[in-house]
């Protein structure tokens, strides 16, 4: 326990987390500090490209693990199943109607790639290895949750648009395509490819992540300020409970799969985190009656900071203890 706390403290004192805190504080103090939209988007492209490429190169270096397919399948199942848990929980402890509950559930079944990137960074700093293909698992977990959530909303009779383009849009969502594409490029070019571009995607990675988390803090803080009244006690509790429940499912699955300690921690992070990029846009199209501020504030204002500060060190500590590492 004290070990977890000291890990958490070390995590909190990293430039990355403090940059996030700075952004949060600046937003709450109503500072006009902003990262231009184009720059934030550019940094997220950089992070996706780098993490995908490095994952692919790692798989190329260590050979394809027999568990890759199993892990991918497990990711798809988790992403599709967690919205059911989330939906039941949110209906039980809040007064949200079925449409809003389904939209929130979609966010929590899907994943937050920045949380994943931050966790990978922390693992690397602590010298804990993880399976390179976990980025492919992350990509596989983006979309299935949306299907389950729409099914839930439909079942509850929610008005929803039937839109043939939506499925293509979800499957070829920019972040999925870039993550999978750069993973494949890393896999194809391996160590040789990595050597050519590591001064770009390895060395400055953590620094870019700092500036990106600064922006995430600003956005999360502004979202929280704008959402006074949107969040009640029940929804707040959901935003803190659901990541722990998700992490539990991730932990059990990862142990079953026999992943390495780092891999276990990353699957926990994926299950614990909630989407705030791909899913919100899909919900606007498919469930226009759902309140977008609600899901976004929960995912970005409550769950993301929780995972970033306390969640990640907790999941890593548990993963290490339970794999006996």
């Amino acid at each position, binding site marked *: 326990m004290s070990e977890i706390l000291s890990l958490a403290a070390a995590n909190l004192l990293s430039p990355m987390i403090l940059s996030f805190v700075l952004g949060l504080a600046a937003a709450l103090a109503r500072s006009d500090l*902003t990262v231009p*939209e184009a720059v*934030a*988007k550019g940094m997220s492209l950089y992070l996706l490209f780098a993490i995908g490429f490095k994952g692919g190169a790692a798989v190329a270096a260590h050979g394809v693990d027999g568990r890759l397919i199993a892990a991918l399948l497990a990711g798809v199942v988790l992403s599709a199943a967690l919205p059911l848990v989330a939906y039941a929980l949110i209906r039980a402890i809040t007064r949200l109607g079925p449409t809003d509950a389904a939209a929130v559930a979609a966010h929590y079944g899907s994943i937050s790639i920045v949380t994943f990137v931050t966790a990978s960074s922390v693992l690397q700093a602590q010298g804990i290895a993880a399976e390179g293909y976990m980025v492919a698992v992350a990509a596989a977990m983006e979309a299935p949750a949306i299907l389950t959530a729409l099914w839930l909303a439909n079942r509850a009779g929610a*008005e929803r*648009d039937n*839109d043939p*383009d939506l499925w293509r849009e979800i499957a070829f969502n920019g972040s999925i395509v870039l993550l999978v594409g750069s993973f494949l490029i890393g896999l194809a070019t391996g160590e040789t490819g990595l050597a050519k571009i590591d001064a770009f995607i390895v060395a400055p990675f953590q620094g870019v992540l700092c500036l990106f988390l600064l922006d*995430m803090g*600003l*956005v999360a803080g*502004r*979202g929280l300020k*704008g959402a006074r009244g949107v969040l009640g006690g029940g929804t707040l509790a959901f935003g803190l409970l659901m990541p722990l429940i998700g992490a539990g499912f991730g932990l059990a699955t990862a142990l079953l799969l026999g992943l390495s300690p780092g891999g276990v921690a990353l699957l926990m992070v994926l299950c614990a985190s909630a989407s*705030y*990029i*791909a899913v*919100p*846009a*899909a919900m*606007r*199209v498919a469930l*226009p*009656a759902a*309140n*977008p*501020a609600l899901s*976004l504030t929960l995912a*970005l204002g409550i769950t993301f900071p929780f995972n970033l500060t306390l969640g990640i060190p907790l999941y890593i500590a548990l993963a290490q203890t339970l794999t006996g590492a």
Partner: protein
Amino acid sequence: MQTHAAKRVEIIIEAPMESRLTAALEKAGVTGFTVLPVLGGSGRSGRWTREGQVGRSGMVAVICLIRPDRLDTLLDAAFAVVERHIGVVSITEAQVLRAERF
């Protein structure tokens, strides 16, 4: 200079709906429009700015200049898309140069 009566329709709509709106317009035979970026706004669903979002899709403004007799076709097509979505549609009287273009 010779000008011709036209309608100027301005549709402010969520960015994820833009491609659906323009597809509907094209299907209805409206092939002239211009899309402008939007920085933020306020309406029944509250205040938003680009800074308060991550995907930051936000909204866009679509402007159509159209012959008066084609207005209803356009509004029907547009309304079918925006109906259940947030956003506003306004129409003003206008004059255009080069009517053969519309």
